[in-house]
Every structure is written in C-alpha cells, then in structure tokens.
C-alpha cells in the first residue's frame, strides 16, 4: 500500500526511531535465542561460582546460589516482553471494541460503555492489582496480563470513542449504512481500519507502560511469582546488593530502561511518520 510505503519512508528519516527499532529487535532476538548461545540455562546452578562478577564463562556474573545472571536476565526479558506486548494488544483491542460501539450505536450502549470507562478511570490500578494478585498466586502469569490489560484501556477507549463519532459522520460510513451494511460490519470494515494508525501508535506506547507497570508490581512482589522470572523480580532480588554486587542489579535495570526507551522512541517515530500534520521536511 503506497500510504504505508510513505509512512515507512518518513519513519526511516527519524534516526532515533530507527535506533529504537533496532534495539527492540536485538532485545527480542536476545530474549528468545540468548539461551542457545550460552551454556547455562536460567534454572541451572553452577556450584563452582557463587556471586562471581562477569567473566568469560558467566557474562553477567552469577547470583548468590550460582545461577547465571545472563541466562536469568534473558529469561526475565522474555517474560517482560511477552507481558508487555500481550497487554498492548489486548488493551487496545478492548478499547477499540468498547469505544467504537459506544460511538457508533449511541443511546444506552453509549451511556453504559462510558460509565464503565469513567468508573475504571477513577480506580487506582496499582492498588487494586496489588490487592487482587495474592488471590491469583500460584496460578498462571497470564492472569497478571489480564489484570494489567483491564486497567490500561480506558484512555484509549475515550479517544476511539471520539474518533468514531467523527468517522460516523463521514460519507463513506453513511454510504455503507444506506447500502444496508450491518452495523458490526461497518465498524470492523470502515471505522476501525480508518483509525489503524492511532491504534498502532497506541499499542506501541501501551507496551512501554505495561512493561514498567509489570516490573513495578513484580518488584513489590505482586506481579510475576517464582519460579517465573521477569525483569521486575530480578531487579527486586538485586536491589539489596546494588552497591556491593552491582551485576545482580545493573544488567536487569539497564535493559529495562533501554527497552522502555526504545519502545517510546518507536512510538514517537510512528506518530510523526503517520501524522499528516507534520510538515514536509523534504528539501528541494
């Protein structure tokens, strides 16, 4: 599609966004294939190396009980990435459905959807997840994804709602309606695809937020539970020795920072590339 080719060309011009994209790609590869390039696995214990600084054998050093920090960090990164992207997709999808139906149908559906949105907006998400999470202890980490998603979609839904209100007035939607096309088909065929750019940008930005929220929760023990590992639990485990055994903390911490930064850079780059308002910067 020529429009997306144009977007891609503009995106390429944005150096920091390209940098972000490369960083994300590298982290992804490392998270899923890192375990194959080191001889250690994340749950293996090297009885000969307790709390050893980084070396040629253990690239990120070892922990108190001899676990390889590199393998653990990659495993944690993997979990954080999966959670982040799942939350991004689920919450944006939820927002699209709730917002678009509220905007398109109006009436009772509009009122009830908007009520739910406003209600969830005023609830403190971190606290609620912290309270609920002990109940799901011992069950799959996927529940955590559901919980975080549940509190991440409302603002997006408000934007989708308003976009729908204006798209509904557009003639191609009216034309479809007068043609006898069913309402849900109108939403999925005409309304949502026309805000695809917004949804894509929003998904990207939510990913960053979700990774941070997950890490924060895990840090306090409310998030990912052992034996699963995420960047948050690694950072929590390493804080105590942040000044004495730096490698326990520093690698997970910096990877988290770099990841979220990269995701934000890509999100900003996408917005600039897709947004038609941005002035043509091509030179003559």
């Amino acid at each position, binding site marked *: 599609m020529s429009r997306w080719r144009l977007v891609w060309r503009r995106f390429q011009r944005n150096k920091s966004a390209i940098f972000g994209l490369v960083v994300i790609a590298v982290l992804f590869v490392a998270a899923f294939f890192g375990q194959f390039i080191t001889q250690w696995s994340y749950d293996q214990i090297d009885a000969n190396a307790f709390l050893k600084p980084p070396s040629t054998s253990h690239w990120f050093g070892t922990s108190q009980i001899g676990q390889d920090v590199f393998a653990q960090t990659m495993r944690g990164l993997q979990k954080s990435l999966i959670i982040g992207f799942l939350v991004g997709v689920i919450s944006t999808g939820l927002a699209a459905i709730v917002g678009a139906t509220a905007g398109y149908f109006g009436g009772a559906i509009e009122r009830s959807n908007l009520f739910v949105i406003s209600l969830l907006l005023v609830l403190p998400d971190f606290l609620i997840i912290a309270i609920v999470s002990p109940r799901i202890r011992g069950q799959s980490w996927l529940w955590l994804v559901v919980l975080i998603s549940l509190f991440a979609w409302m603002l997006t839904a408000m934007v989708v709602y308003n976009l729908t209100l204006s798209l509904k007035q557009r003639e*191609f939607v009216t*034309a479809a309606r007068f*043609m006898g096309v069913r309402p849900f088909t109108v939403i999925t065929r005409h309304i949502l695809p026309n805000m695809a750019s917004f949804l894509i940008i929003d998904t990207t930005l939510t990913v960053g937020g979700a990774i941070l929220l997950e890490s924060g929760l895990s840090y306090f023990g409310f998030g990912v539970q052992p034996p699963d590992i995420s960047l948050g639990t690694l950072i929590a485990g390493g804080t105590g020795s942040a000044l004495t055994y730096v490698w326990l903390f520093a690698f997970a911490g910096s990877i988290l920072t770099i990841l979220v930064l990269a995701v934000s850079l890509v999100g900003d780059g996408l917005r600039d590339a897709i947004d038609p308002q941005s002035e043509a910067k091509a030179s003559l």
Partner: protein
Amino acid sequence: MTEEPGAIAHDPSATLSVRDLKVTFPSEAGAVAAVRGVNFDVHPGEVVGIVGESGSGKSTVALAVMGLLQNSARVTGSAHFKGDELLGLEDKALSRIRGRSVAMVFQDPLSAFTPVYTIGAQISEAIRIHQDVTKDQANARAIELLDLVGIPQAKDRIRSFPHEFSGGMRQRAMIAMAIANDPDLIIADEPTTALDVTVQAQILDVLETARQATKAALLLITHDLGVVAGTCDRVAVMYGGRIVETSEVYSVFKQPQMPYTIGLLGAVPRLDSGVGEPLVPIEGAPPNMVNLPDACPFVERCPIAIDVCREREPGLDETLTSTTENVHQVACHRSNEIVDGRIDGQPVFALPVLGAIEHTTIARADREVVIDVKDLIRQYPVRKGAVLSRRVGTVYAVDGVSFDVRTGEALALVGESGCGKTSTVTEILELRKLKGGSVTIFGKNAAELSKDEKQEVRRNLQVVFQDPQASLDPRLPVGDILAEPLKTHGMPKEEQRARVLELLSLVGLEATHADRYPAEFSGGQRQRIAIARALALNPQLIILDEPVSALDVSIQAGVLNLLTELRARLGLAYIFVAHDLSVVRQTADRVAVMYLGRIIEIGDTDDVFNRPWHPYTQALLSAVPIPDPVRERERHRILLTGDQPSPTVHYEGCRFRSRCFRYQALPEDQTQDCRTLDPSLTDPTGHDLGHEGTHGAACFHIEERDVV
C-alpha cells in the same frame, strides 16, 4: 532577483507587472512546479481575471505576489508594484504595502476574520495601522465603509462578531476592510466561491462599487468562467502552472485559440442551452506537476495534438488575430490553424453522442411512480447549555415538501444552502418514522417497512454523495468498494468479481483499476467509482447529492454526460440535489426550486427555466452568470436584498415576502394575501397543482418573466 536572458521588460505604466514568476514546493514525490513562468500586467483601473481549474497555480500566483506562501516554497522571477519590486522583500516592508496599497479578499471570509474581535475593531485596526487617525475617526470610517458595501444598520452591526454575520455579510465586511486604505490594487482570490448564487451576485456588485470608489485595479482569481465573462476586462487562462491563453475578454470567449480554452468553454453547463444537450468533456486529468517533461502540459488531453506537441513546450506567442490594442497570446503549436473553435472545418472537441431517453415517448402520467413524498417535515432541535442542555427552539429544515418521481425521470431539487434540499433526501434515505408527512417508495410506506422489506428497498435505492473523496473508504481497494453492496445483499463470491469488472467498464474505467486505492484516482474518476457502486445492485432510484459540485468543470462535464447516458441505458430515476442551476439544465427533466424548507416552484425543466413564475426562481436564474461576455453584460440581474431568513421561525404569510421584489412593488391593497396566507403550488389562474399538473409556483402574483 535575477532576470533570465530574453525576459520581457516590466511595463512601467502597469500597477502590477509580473515577469517570469516561478514557484516550486517541496514534496515527498519531488519538487512540485506549481507556477512555471507567468507574465502578466494589471493596469490602473483594469479588471484582470485569472481562470483555471484546481491545481493550475492561479491562487499560488496571487499568494506569491503578496509574499504569503509558506517558507518552504521557492519563488523566483519578479513582480513590480508601481515600479517597485515585491518579491524578496522583508516581511516588514511587505506589510507596509499589503493592506495599504494592495488589498486582498480571500475565499473563506470566516477564517479571514479573527473570531474574538468585533468586525468594527478589525476594520478600524486595519485603518489605524496604515493611517494616522484617532480611534473615533477610524471607527467612523469603518461605519462608512460597511455602509458602502451594503451592510444594513452599519452603526449597530459594527459591534458584531464575525460569527454573527452570514457568509455574504462577512465577504462584504472583508471587502470593506480591503478598501479601507484606498488601495491601488485589490486581489480577490475566489471571492464568491463559498457563496450562494444570489449572494454571489450581490458580492460581485459590491466589488464593482468598491472598485469604482477606490479606482483600484482588480486582479480576480476564479474558476468560474461566468464570473469572468461578467466582470473582467482582460483574462488569462492558466493550465499546468502557466498562462496558456490571454487576451481581452471578448476575444477569449469568441475566438479561443487554445484547445484547452475551447474545451473549457464547451464543458461549462450553461443556463441558456437546451435540455439534454451533451456537454463536451475534456478527457483525462491535469498533469502531475512533478518532473514535467518538455512538452505541452495539455498534450495528453488534447484531441488535436501532433508530434511537435510532445517534443517541445509551446511558448506564449501572439496569434495572427492579435493587434496592438488587443494583444491575444496563446501557448499552442497549432493555434493559428484554429478558427472559431474549429480546425480544418471540424470542431476541436467533437460533441459526444448520448443515447436518447426511451421514456420520453410515454406520457408522464402513465409512468409508474417510484417515490411519492407528501408533506415531508424534518425538524432539528436547537439546544442551549452544555451540561443541562434544554431545547430552546426548532429548525424547520424541511417544512412540508411534496413531490413524486416516476420511472426514468430525473427530478432536480435546487436551492441555496440552508433551503433544506439535503435534509429532504437524507430524511428519505433514513427510511424511518417521520415527524410529519409520508414517503411512499416503490409502492410501500417507508415508515412501516419490516427489516427484510427495508433491505429490499435499500437494494433499489442508492445514493451518490457530493465529495467522492469522502464517500469512498480510503483503506479499501476499488474492487472491494464496489463489491461491498454485492456482498451485503448476498451475491455469491464467484459472481462478485465479474460484476465489479462489468461496473468498471460501465462507468468508463479499466479492469486493472479494481486493485488500486481511491487515493490513486482523480476526483472525476472517484466520482465514477461512487456512481458504479450505486449501480452495483441495479437500483431503480438513485439519489445524487450534489454529485458534481466538488469537481472541476472539465471533469464535471464527463460525469454529467455519464449520468445522462446511464439513465437512458438503464432506465433509472434520479433525484438530483444541486445548488447550481446550470448543471441541472442539462441533466434533469423536472426541477423543484426550494426556499426555506418548502418547494416554491416545480415544473418541467424547460418551463421553469424559460418561463419562471416565482419571483425567487426568477432572481435565482438571473443571478447565475452565463459564460458569454456579450450576453452576460446585456442581462438584467435581479438583486435580492438581504440573506435567507432564519429557518428557526415559522413565518406568517408567504415565506419569501421579506426579500420579494414583486411584493415591494405591489400597491398596499394587493398585499393582503402575501402577508396572511401561506401560498400553495398553483398555476397562474390559481388552480391547485395536483400531481398531474406539471408546472406550479407558490405565489399569489405569478407573473412570467424572461431572465435567462
């Protein structure tokens, strides 16, 4: 500014003298050469028109001269204003000239005023910036100016904010501001394009008054050949960023020698032509202004192009008929072979042959009624307050409209903006319970349809909207857009593709177009796609909501011809909503003129155009300019006073009374009916017009008048 060798010297006597003006914009696709070497002079007191279609560069010329282009534009060449160079001046120096010696009138008067200051404050500000006067003096002058441009009660209206003015009044105020400092040159960029025809007539009148009051020269930029014919002394036709023909106005209209000008004149729908006469479309689309080759920019659309046209771009040269008093220049290699729009005795653009409409042989009364609308009412609530909104009034958008359309017939609903014509058709399309009146469509009452019946009606009732850019989903390829109605109404997938290809060829597009996206098409092609979509299910009735008003003249002609031809071939019925009366003349069998939510005159097209009965119809017709300077300047224009009254009030008596010239001329004792009774559609003898009657007007004092 460096002058290229061979450049023509500036004319020292001219108010504005532009030489070799070039403007280039950056874009993703490459540099866009919007203006490519334009020369023209505007002499003191002269009216020069620049005509061209969208993308021809006509507005860019004006903006470049005024130094109002965006910073990324590259402007070269030279523009002398009374001997002083304008191009390349600092913004500060330019600002001293802008507004004082050169004034500008823009197309959209709403965005030309700051919404937070009163009209008076903005006009007196313009005065005080350039003249050393006190606040009171400036204010007095502002009142004087508003009075000059015909704003009633100028003393009070000076305290109004821009949003309290109607479009026409804002444009008047804009002109008042433009002439505030007694300029030597007024540049008017499409000054009447956003306005209704009766208001356009008023504004052109005001512009002429303003020009005479200031003795300024006027540079009029427009796409409307009719406006040019009525107002300009000289005209320059622009195409592809260059002037392709320029001369004194009479010779351009009488002896055009550039094929593009000839085509344009043939493509304009005219009020004074017969019904069903085909227009001459110019095939193809204007050139892409990126990387133009060294060839005539019109070559792809020119019916008489020869090899040399593709090899070398013609210069703007004087023709054989050119004289020293009347310089006629044309940029065409074959211009000297063209005489009276003909070359070797053949017309440059051959008249297309359209199929005759079969139904015309059957009497109207014997044809089946497709849709019957009776006393249709549509009201909108007026609400006030953001939190606790309460209803404070009602807009009577459609206030008792009745008409019927029979098979194979095209009914045009015409009227100015706000008359309720679009509300009428959307109310029909919604197929819902009505506030009042009834719609019987294909023999069934629209308000009482079951779900299945509704779907069946939708199948036979299709719509084409005004703006093809907005009515086609930009994210779907054309094939999917055309398949949508087929899919919705359950056509098997295998057959869909074949039907899509059939539809494309029906509207004159190619099979390969099915895989492209709407953005890759020109405006005219997009409207053809929208028409193809409406035809997909073989409907009986198509509602066309201003189907050509967003298109350029040369493209509009092709779409109008297509509509006429499809109607003849497929036996369709149309409801054709339009604000432009000349468009309707060629396309419609019957015309209904609307005013303030009511049809005030209805009849066969020939009757309404040749023998209009209602004073409003007469004023409307007289306000439409005819693209022929000789005829246009002989016509008597009926100027209506004021604007259309507010539709939020129910008026006692005739709703047109407040602006009616006939009412004003009547002796007191004959105005009783006009003041107290609501007129219904009758013929001149006062007989009520049933559905059988063909011509009727809602007026107590019907009087025939020839206005075209």
